[in-house]
């Protein structure tokens, strides 16, 4: 008598098939074609993997390294900054204020991204607030605009909320009684943190990493606004083929490679995380066994 539940997913299926799969398959198809003369964007009468070979030139590789470096460093920095922040919000702030604080984390997002990054430029410019502060404190002028540090600052700033939210949710779900129990059983605070709290927050950590890392890999505007030339990303290569060079075949091949690299990187990260936490989990089981 129960209706098949997947019927509920049909609207989303249809929506994504019509407005995502159909148009994107078309682009995937382009990647096996070529650019016919200077007046066409793509042709598919001869199919080949040549565009993929073309896409794997040293330029693409160097840019890929840069992109991966920025994305990994940015994601890790977000994690390091967001962990104590989310823990504070979830465990230390009175619960009636928590919703408000979470909303406040999102508020900067409601200003246009270009405008808020320009806000940073004003702060960081050689004649700006930070530099004057540095001078009056005796550090001399601070000039980090268009350096690698500025790339990371821009990236962390724009993606931090996407890390804080899932971490908060995860910490919020950890029952305070568990931490108390751990302490009562004689564990010190670090052991409680690494043995109980962090492992229980693991789903949030994973969600946060995915939410930050994936869009960051495809982004090509945020890193350049503050980082200038140091923030060169693969997304820029893809966009330049579609827009300026009008070589859709090559652009599509680059996009497909980008998607593959994101998937592989996440897969490797998942494996690594599993391998690293394996002894931790084993010990946790052991300890639970002792306690029983």
């Amino acid at each position, binding site marked *: 008598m129960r209706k098949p539940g997947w019927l509920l997913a049909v609207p989303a299926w249809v929506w994504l098939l019509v407005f995502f799969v159909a148009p994107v398959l078309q682009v995937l198809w382009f990647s096996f074609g070529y650019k016919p003369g200077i007046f*066409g964007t793509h042709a598919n009468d001869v199919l080949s993997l040549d565009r993929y070979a073309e896409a794997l030139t040293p*330029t693409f590789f160097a840019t890929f390294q*840069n992109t991966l470096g920025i994305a990994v460093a940015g994601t890790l920095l977000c994690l390091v900054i967001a962990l104590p922040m989310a823990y504070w919000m979830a465990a230390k702030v009175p619960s009636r204020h928590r919703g408000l604080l979470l909303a406040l984390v999102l508020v900067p997002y409601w200003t246009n991204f270009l405008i808020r990054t320009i806000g940073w430029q004003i702060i960081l410019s*050689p004649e700006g607030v930070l530099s004057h502060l540095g001078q009056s404190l005796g550090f001399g002028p601070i000039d980090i605009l268009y350096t690698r540090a500025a790339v990371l600052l821009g990236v962390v700033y724009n993606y931090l909320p996407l890390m804080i939210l899932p971490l908060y949710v995860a910490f919020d779900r950890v029952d305070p009684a568990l931490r108390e129990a751990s302490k009562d059983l004689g564990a010190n605070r670090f052991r409680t943190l690494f043995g109980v709290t962090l492992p229980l927050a693991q789903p949030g950590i994973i969600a946060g990493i995915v939410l930050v890392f994936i869009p960051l890999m495809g982004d090509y505007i945020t890193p350049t606004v503050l980082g200038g*030339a140091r923030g060169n990303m693969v997304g820029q290569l893809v966009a330049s083929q579609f*827009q300026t060079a009008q070589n859709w075949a090559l652009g599509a091949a680059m996009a497909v490679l980008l998607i593959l690299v994101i998937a592989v990187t996440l897969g490797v990260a998942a494996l690594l995380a599993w391998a690293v936490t394996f002894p931790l989990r084993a010990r946790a089981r052991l300890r639970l066994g002792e306690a029983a």
Partner: protein
Amino acid sequence: MSRQSHIRILAPRSAAPYIAREISRRRFLELAGVVGVTGALAACAPTVKPSTQATGGPVEGELSIYSWGDYDAPEVLEAFTSELGPTITMDAFNSNEEMIAKLTTSKGTSGYDIVVPTGVFIPGMAQNGLLSKLNLDLIPNIQHMDPAFLGQDWDPNNEYSICKAWGTTGFVYDKTVISRELTTWADFIDAAQNEASGKTSVLDDPAEITGIYFWANGIDWNTTDPDDLDAAEKFAVEELAPHISRFDSYPGGEAIPQASQVLMQVWNGDARIGILNSPDPDRWQWVLGAPKTELWMDNWAIAAGAPHPEAAHAFINYVLTPENALAELDYIGYHTGEAGIEEAARDAELEMLDLVFFTPEQIATMVNGEVTEAQARIVDIWNKTKAAASA
């Protein structure tokens, strides 16, 4: 020329030489690309209905303009509406490619009346039926234009377009850091490699980067010679890229007032805005690129299938009056191509007009870009330069 032999265009015989020349213009490639994309879709589409030609009938109640953002003086737009009636809808694009893609794919139903393409795109747009011919009888104020900015290569009889604003490329440097005098692109390169290393920005556009090398060394900007392109790549990647800190098309908006760079390749109007708004304007020196540099022109044009052709003509005619042209110049900071506007601007005591007006000798050193088969190569050089600069 052999590459062009397979293109067939229906055109009057007398126009053939123009078309043959114009079709190779650099930017046309990008347009043709977009056209090609939708070619398959267009094949089964109903044919575009011929655009309605304005005849001087009553002005419609609305007008839709598709242009660069914030590119017209608000008081001119308001005055037009209050004097002649039509309410104006303004839409913005970020690049010519974007605008052409929009017009092409909507096949005459975009709803736009006036568009503002850069000159080199116009022949291609006209040939692909994206533009409607102007009825110059309805634009008597074209008489106020300086003939030097009418009849450009891309539209010799102003059939489709009239100059809206034009500009050129040069650079700005910080005199507190670079004490010697820079005057040419060769000086730009030398300063970038020395005093301004790591504090240099270039325009975020493929042809502007190869342009620095070609202009400095007396090579045709639109060359397709593989040796020239190889040399340009070697220069850009090995000699220039390590010193570049940013690819920035609008340093006047931020970098000059904030003094965050020492040496910047920049368009003239943008440089002027930046210097005017700098807390220390005397620190900055503008240099027009030499011995050769670029000339670009944005133009008023009417989209094919424009729903309000009378209002569109009325508007173009309206902005060409000397007062309105001056208001526009004052607002956007670029020369609008009117005769006598230089005197009017000096009488109105607008500032830093040497960044807006140039002598005929200077204008003679400015060249137009073209679409050539080297386009893909130039984009490749640009991407390699960016990769090298990020290291």
